């Protein structure tokens, strides 16, 4: 009996040590970034970034254009500038299937579909959406099946549309929500929304019709997070715009750490507005008020 108890205690001690070590062991190694395009034209308040399979597309918001970089050997290269007349003020980007990108335009508050080279394909058309039909998108996400998720401000819901834009279902915002800024879908199809005002994350299991609290009481770690991203391991990245940092949550919603800080120098952030994670786990951040894109290796 005594031997069994001792074994359990030893096992728990070792397990706890390893899990604590795992939480502490995440490191954000700055790899540099980009602050201009291939023609040496500086970026101006870039707000959006999308990690595609072959390229990183940046919403160079202040210049009203996109810049398409390739990420090779941990460096952002090329930087081809693309002007899209239909998207004059790109705010937020999300990568979709076949290297396509969805771009939210601040001026029209419409979502545009862009091809892999950044050219305009068309606006996202919401078909058969139940009232209110005037959808006002604040953000969007794309799942593995290429379904699109729209954070609809007017309808206080997340709309789920098929790749053609046809309505599939919707998930209403949780009752006690404050102001939701962003949403994300993990590899299993679970839906997450970020309540910036209350520093909370809600989760809806695939096909669920309601949100449940995933992580709350994050006020001690967050000032005002604006975007949420999930990596292939299910870890959740919250980008704290007002206090220039990244907060990492575990797949169970537990707080794993707060990384990076406010500043002007390399590796520091000043009002970051969007992040994305590449297939090999590199974190790309639109460091808006520093007029640059920064990349970090997550170790």
């Amino acid at each position: 009996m005594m031997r069994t108890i001792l074994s359990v205690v030893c096992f728990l001690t070792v397990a706890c040590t390893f899990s604590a070590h795992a939480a502490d062991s995440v490191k954000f190694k700055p790899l540099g970034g980009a602050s201009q395009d291939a023609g040496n034209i500086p970026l101006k308040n870039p707000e959006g970034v999308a990690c595609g399979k072959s390229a990183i597309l940046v919403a160079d918001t202040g210049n009203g254009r996109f810049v398409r970089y390739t990420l090779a050997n941990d460096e952002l290269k090329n930087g081809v500038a693309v002007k899209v007349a239909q998207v004059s003020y790109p705010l937020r980007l999300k990568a979709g299937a076949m290297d396509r990108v969805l771009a939210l335009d601040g001026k029209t508050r419409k979502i545009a579909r862009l091809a892999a080279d950044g050219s305009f394909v068309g606006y996202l058309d919401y078909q058969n959406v139940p009232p209110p039909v005037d959808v006002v998108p604040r953000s969007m996400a794309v799942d593995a099946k290429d379904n699109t998720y729209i954070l609809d401000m007017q309808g206080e819901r997340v709309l789920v549309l098929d790749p053609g834009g046809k309505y599939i279902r919707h998930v209403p915002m949780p009752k006690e929500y404050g102001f939701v800024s962003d949403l994300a879908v993990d590899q299993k199809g679970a839906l997450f929304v970020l309540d910036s005002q209350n520093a909370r994350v809600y989760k809806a299991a695939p096909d669920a019709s309601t949100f449940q609290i995933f992580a709350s009481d994050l006020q001690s770690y967050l000032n005002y997070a604006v975007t949420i991203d999930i990596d292939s391991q299910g870890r959740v990245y919250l980008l704290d715009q007002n206090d220039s940092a990244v907060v990492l949550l575990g797949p169970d919603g537990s707080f794993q750490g707060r990384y990076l800080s406010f500043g002007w120098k390399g590796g520091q952030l000043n009002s970051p507005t969007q992040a994305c994670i590449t297939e090999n786990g590199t974190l790309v951040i639109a460091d808006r008020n520093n007029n640059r894109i920064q990349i970090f290796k997550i170790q």
Partner: protein
Amino acid sequence: MRVRIFSFLTAGILLIACVQCLFAAGTDEQFKLKPGARGNLCLKCHNSFREKMTQKYQHTPLKKNECTGCHNAHSSAHGKMLAVDSGSVCSACHPPMISKTAKSVHKVVAEGGCMKCHDPHSAASKDNLVKEGKLLCFTCHKALGGKLAKVKHRHAPVEKDCLICHRPHSSDNGPFLLKNDITQLCVSCHKTDKPLFIKKHMGYPVASSRCTGCHDPHGSDSSGLLLKNVHSPVSKRMCNQCHEESTSPTPLNTKKDGPALCRGCHNEMYNKTFDKNRIHWPVVSKEGCLGCHNPHASEDKGLLRKPMAQLCGECHIDTMKRLQKNVSRHEPVVEGRCTECHDPHSSNNLSLTRKPADFDLCTSCHDWGQHSTHPIGEKIRDPRNKNLSVGCASCHRTHGTEFRKMLYYPTTTEMCLQCHEQLKR
């Protein structure tokens, strides 16, 4: 075994003795007290108290000459040698003043500040109140008292006593310590079926509407006790400009939903708002204009639902929290004049500023840009980050910081050395 029983019994006896002492069940004889030791003897030194004892209303222990009812005659860890701290001394005899089902609670009661309203010894007013009626309330509610002294029209009950509408400790039935829900309380005096009431409200069935959406329940400069700022159609009694006719089956319904209704009159503003690059997201939320504005009347300019700092702070909680920590604060932020720098609807600038941040915006109030300053402007690059030019926000944080002059660092030297590294010694 015997030793154990003996120890157990001894401990029991000691415990009982301690409890008896604690509850001071002893008689004067047991304590060998001199006559009057619980009160009258105190007056030998505390002579000025004799005057207190002539007041009309006296606290029961004082009436019985029992100073020891509240004070410890020998020593105390609490002020005024109270037997327990001042926040809980009253509850030793008085039942709790806050109901378990209270909808609203007087803050001072919750904090145990009974003595802010009641004199613990005696007073000229009933219930030992330190002042009579509304004068007592206005001791703390100074702004309201000041306002009521100036306004042309005062609500009749306010002239008499606040307790006609409010409860002093807590209320089970209404917000703001009201005796009942706002509307129910109002209609208990203002009969809604009277012809004058119906006429004044243009025939609209407002009996179940929230009266304080238009009226100030305390007083106002307008005869109808309307709030300071009234929406033009309301002041012109043109309710049907927004609502269906009073004769319709659904008279309180609006003619259009949401912002589409407001657009009918505010078209120019609406077009300007939606023509800009960045929108304040609540504008396009389900609540739309009503998220921030009261459609009928308001005490605040722009028909805001609340004073601006409170209203903006409802969502921008982090900004308000940071502000409290700051040592240096930007004056407009402190005074809740958020819209001095920000456009609350939309803007072409980051953070919805009225002018491009930061030089243009800052110099609209600060004239330092017109005489010699640290080199700033588009051509001066920030040594910390060559992508940036040097501007006001290179050294100062716009809302304020934990350091003086809204600097990012504790000292000016530390701030300067961020860029002028070569001068570091």
